[in-house]
């Protein structure tokens, strides 16, 4: 038995891959739910109702999907270039921290749209810088960016803790460590009345479209993909390797930083060390389920958000531990890897 490269891959095959992966993950999830002594079908009904069954459920799911679209894009952009950015979590937090800092002191008094624009640029910039460091270390010294970006996540979250217990501490939070809230004028408007869903969703979708255009239609996009495919061949063909990798790092880190900006301006208004329930890491799952396609990221992010929001509802209704959401998503990541393999290879005996 051996694997043989397919000569052509139909679009239908690529579109089926995520569905097959998700089906497998749900099947394994149902075994684990069964082990908990709960009827899996009933549990999944709770999951779907909890994530799509009401106006509140839908807006909650989309609110949760918003940062996931952005961290998913961040992972997709980087992985396409084989830049292994596992630091989305840290980049998210520096973006959020920058927002909290600017939003309660520096840009107050400016007209809101201008102030928000400044915050977005600044938040994206610090996110980009945080990934540029590891990218430079890889280019210059050959240090594996997986480990450096990951270790920086721990450093950044400790730094956030330091800031919100120290200089940025909110004195009105009854001793609870969180940052001073951003100015009320700067909060992103709601998209749906009486819900948490905010304009950030549109920003995230616009970002997906923009990233897709950049990757599909510009020279940078082509070069970035070429480097991901075969760095040596790309360099031989005249692609400036450092420039492309660094550009990709800036784009990827900027997107993850933007996720932090949007989450603070849209949802919480302040920063805590629990602002992100692992958006940076879930972004990797989102990107893989989307087969690294920017538009696919939007759909994958909504799916991942559904699982998280729905699993909480399922946990409340049935008592199945909500950790099941992470189990289902990590299995769908692994099975998606295999499914993707079979879109490019077939088995020959």
């Amino acid at each position, binding site marked *: 038995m*051996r*694997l043989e490269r397919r000569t052509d891959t139909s679009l239908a095959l690529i579109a089926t891959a995520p569905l097959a992966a998700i089906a497998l993950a749900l099947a394994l999830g149902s075994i*684990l739910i069964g*082990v*908990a002594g709960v009827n899996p079908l009933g549990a999944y009904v709770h999951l779907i109702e909890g994530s799509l069954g009401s106006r509140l459920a839908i807006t909650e799911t989309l609110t949760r999907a918003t940062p996931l679209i952005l961290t998913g894009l961040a992972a997709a952009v980087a*992985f396409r270039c084989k830049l*292994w950015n*596992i630091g989305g979590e840290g980049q998210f937090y520096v973006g959020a921290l920058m927002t909290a800092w600017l939003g309660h002191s520096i840009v107050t008094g400016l007209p809101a749209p201008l102030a928000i624009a400044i915050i977005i640029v600044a938040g994206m910039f610090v996110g980009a810088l945080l990934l540029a460091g590891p990218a430079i*270390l890889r280019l210059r*010294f*050959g*240090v*594996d960016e*997986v*480990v*450096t970006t*990951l*270790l*920086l996540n*721990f*450093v950044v979250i*400790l*730094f956030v*803790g*330091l800031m919100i*217990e*120290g200089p940025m501490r909110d004195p009105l939070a009854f001793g609870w460590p969180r940052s001073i809230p951003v100015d009320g004028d700067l909060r992103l408007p709601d998209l749906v009345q009486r819900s948490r869903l905010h304009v950030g969703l549109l920003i995230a979708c616009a970002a997906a479209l923009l990233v897709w255009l950049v990757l599909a239609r510009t020279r940078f996009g082509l070069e970035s993909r070429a480097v991901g495919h075969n760095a040596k061949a790309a360099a031989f063909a005249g692609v400036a390797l450092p420039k492309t990798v660094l550009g990709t790092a800036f784009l990827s880190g900027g997107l993850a930083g933007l996720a932090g900006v949007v989450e603070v301006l849209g949802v919480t208004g302040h920063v805590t060390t629990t602002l992100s329930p692992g958006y940076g*890491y879930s972004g*990797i*799952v989102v990107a*893989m389920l989307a087969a690294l396609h920017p538009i696919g990221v939007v759909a994958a992010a909504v799916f991942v958000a559904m699982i998280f929001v729905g699993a909480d509802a399922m946990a409340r209704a049935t008592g199945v*531990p909500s*950790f*099941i959401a*992470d*189990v289902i*998503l*990590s*299995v769908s*990541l*692994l099975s998606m*890897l*295999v499914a993707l*393999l079979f879109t490019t290879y077939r088995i020959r005996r």
Partner: protein
Amino acid sequence: MAETIDILTSASLWAAVLRIATPLIFGVLGALLCERSGVLNLGIEGIMTMGAMVGWLTVYLGADLWTGLLAAALSGAIFGLLHSGLTVSLGLSQHVSGLGITLFAASLSYYLYRLLVEVGDLPPTIEPFQALYIPGLSDLPFVGEVLFQQSAPTYLALLTVVVVAYVLARTPLGLAIRMTGENPHAVDAQGLDPLAIRYGAVMAGSALMAVGGAFLTMAAFNSFFPEMVQGRGWICIALVVFASWRPGKALLGALLFAFFDAFQLRLQTSVEGVPYQLFLMAPYLLSIAALILVARRAQVPEALMTPYRRGER
């Protein structure tokens, strides 16, 4: 200054160094074994979590400590099998597969723990490995407290260093593993199966990682809680590079690292006015610094991260 010297000359510091190094020694040896055969295993953080949970749970359910350790090793080997299947047989990206396994193993551990254990206000506990008492030796001043009052898994870790170093450097099996990491084609030409060697090395390595995790719940603490591995797995991945893929240097790296960790912990309590987060950042920043320092002259196994397919170049 005087305080710093007091800390450095206290036996409790150096005893703590050995204790803190133990999970790292297991982890770094496990990662080293995988990488020497040509497979990067980023599943380590999750596999350590799984080992911590399985070892603890086995004892909690009534088995003795050594059975618990064995169960942990087995759980690690199973995830090693999964990682090998995906990366060795199917040739999938070792980066992504490893990350997927970290997410999977960690979330499965938390899920099963919540499911099987009744958790009240305080997490339930087990009777962990105790410090051994060796008549005569343990009573020696300083040396006795540092070297001869450790728990059994710490001695097992030191023994494992010797075994792994010996096997890799001096046995035909070790040669085969090293050659698979450098040039699987040559191994194939010798009539050995590089795929089988990679499976074996990854499973054995993952078992060691899981034992490292189990040390946390079965010797260092006596309960299991989420996020308890706290990046130790990632630090092990950094330490492998620091050690240039050599077991002896891996031990040295783990000890050096543990020294800084134990030292900062004690400094934290004696230095006032410095935010404690700065101390906690130190281990992570130190790992990055170590990576930069040695990256240039690192002797990376030639075939690391390249899947092997017979008849394909």
